């Protein structure tokens, strides 16, 4: 009498619902790339169609945020005085951090909010956080002209260093993707995390210097050295620093070239950890 497993093997059957190897898993994602792109676009358009101003909101959102911060931090708290071109500083900060924050935010909910899709179609769950990140990167791409307009209006000269900005973005995207994957798995089994995440992300933005130069402030605080390195080399601060160094000639971040090394390391690290952690959870995401 054969065991069921032996009978299955004898008949050439394989286990269903088995997590594929990492390579095959990523190949599955690549195979569905057209769906990822179409789904990201559809979700954006679906969001816009409900609003009267439609796609204009993708530009209005960062502009309104920027205006709010400018009044709050620039005018009322006096951050304007600490940076030469405060509006430019703020614009780069808000637009850059928005990619990270919104990718993590919508990526974290992408699996728990779309279980129906995973539980009904033979698709790798990684398509959902990936589509969420693609959606946010598209939103950023749309808003780039506004960012450039603010820079030019505030008197920033067009410089060769601007060419470094796409490089910085190319490092931010893998970081945001990896982070979104990590959070998506976490939120999928502990929904509570999703509840505190918006708050944590805003505080992180504050601590990373979206609204005022935190890293410079640290030096004058007389904090222990390790706290200073944590603040200066946290991915948020690092990505803001490389973007500002690239786009603002009136501003030089304290970290200098070291920031680029940190930016690359964070990108590689987050993506590796995120992909592996998310892949290891495959097969559990369809559960309600």
């Amino acid at each position, binding site marked *: 009498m054969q065991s069921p*497993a032996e009978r299955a093997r004898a*008949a*050439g059957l394989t*286990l269903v619902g088995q997590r594929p190897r990492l390579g095959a898993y990523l190949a599955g994602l690549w195979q569905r790339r057209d*769906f990822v792109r179409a789904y990201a676009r559809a*979700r954006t358009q679906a969001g816009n169609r409900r609003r009267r101003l439609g796609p204009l909101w993708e530009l209005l959102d960062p502009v309104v945020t920027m205006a709010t911060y400018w009044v709050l931090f620039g005018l009322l708290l006096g951050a304007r005085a600490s940076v030469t071109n405060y509006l430019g500083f703020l614009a780069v900060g808000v637009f850059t951090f928005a990619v990270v924050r919104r990718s993590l935010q919508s990526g974290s909910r992408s699996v728990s909010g779309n279980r129906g899709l995973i539980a009904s179609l033979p698709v790798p769950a990684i398509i959902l956080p990936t589509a969420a990140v693609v959606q946010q990167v598209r939103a950023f791409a749309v808003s780039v002209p506004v960012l450039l307009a603010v820079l030019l209006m505030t008197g920033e000269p067009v410089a060769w260093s601007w060419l470094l900005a796409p490089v910085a973005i190319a490092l931010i995207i893998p970081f945001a993707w990896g982070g979104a994957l990590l959070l998506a798995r976490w939120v999928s089994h502990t929904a509570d995390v999703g509840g505190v995440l918006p708050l944590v992300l805003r505080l992180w933005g504050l601590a990373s210097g979206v609204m005022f130069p935190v890293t410079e402030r640290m030096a004058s605080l007389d904090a222990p050295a390790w706290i200073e390195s944590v603040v200066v080399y946290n991915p948020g601060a690092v990505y803001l620093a490389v973007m500002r160094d690239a786009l603002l000639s009136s501003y030089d971040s304290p970290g200098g070239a070291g920031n680029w090394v940190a930016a690359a390391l964070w990108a590689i690290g987050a993506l590796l950890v995120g992909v592996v952690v998310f892949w290891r959870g495959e097969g*559990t995401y*369809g*559960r309600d």
Partner: protein
Amino acid sequence: MDGTDGPPVPNGTDRARLPDGTDRPSLRVLLDDVHVAYRVLPHGRMGPRRPVQVKALQGVSLDIHEGECLGIIGRNGAGKSTLLRAIAGLVPVDHGAVYSTSTPVLLGVGRSLVPQMSGRENIELGCLALGMSRSEIRERTDEIIEFSGIAESIDLPMSTYSSGMAARLKFAIASSVVHEILLLDEALATGDMDFKERSIQRMGELRDHADAVVIVSHSLSAIRASCTRAVWLDKGSVRADGSVEDVIEQYVDDTRRRRQARRDRRRAGPSS
């Protein structure tokens, strides 16, 4: 498992095994003691809550062979849909295992559609989710629209559709792909009489193209019409497995007994 020469399996007698231990005709899907439980958080209490287990499948073992069309019957909540999703590998199995020659596919488009988008855009989305290439989609779109029978509303957002229209579009998309091992939830065939007839016919075509089929249906006549074997699922376990007539008879008897028991209880007087 060359899988081309096996004759259709006669009703219920598929357990015949050759002395060397191999199955004839070739085995396509094997379920070995499959358990599935859902974990839910209980309602209504403040403070940290512990998840409660709801058992949906409790030890289901089945062999499905080439050429078979297996009908699953049972009452609501017996675990029929969970069984289909477990075979497709869409819900994780807590204990036991599902083996198969190729990944069984549950007919449907799931939640891959976006209600704010038009029917045409959703055809593209749904087909991409099902793994079609862009050129295949271009080829099939017109056929899908025609089958759905909602050509005049195809460029309106899906959220403006009636539930019947949406169901037709979803069925038209999902049924445009042929699968080797097909899992069907007959509740899919909805809509007016004309569409129902056409979708039943379409399901028949899909069945003909598949090597093995599992159907969940509440319609005993549909099971009689298309299945070669039936399984009665009750409270997450197999209560009967065999020829369509035998299994349906047992199921109908049981349903009658239950009805009679309910009637008797009622007659026994209103107990407070």
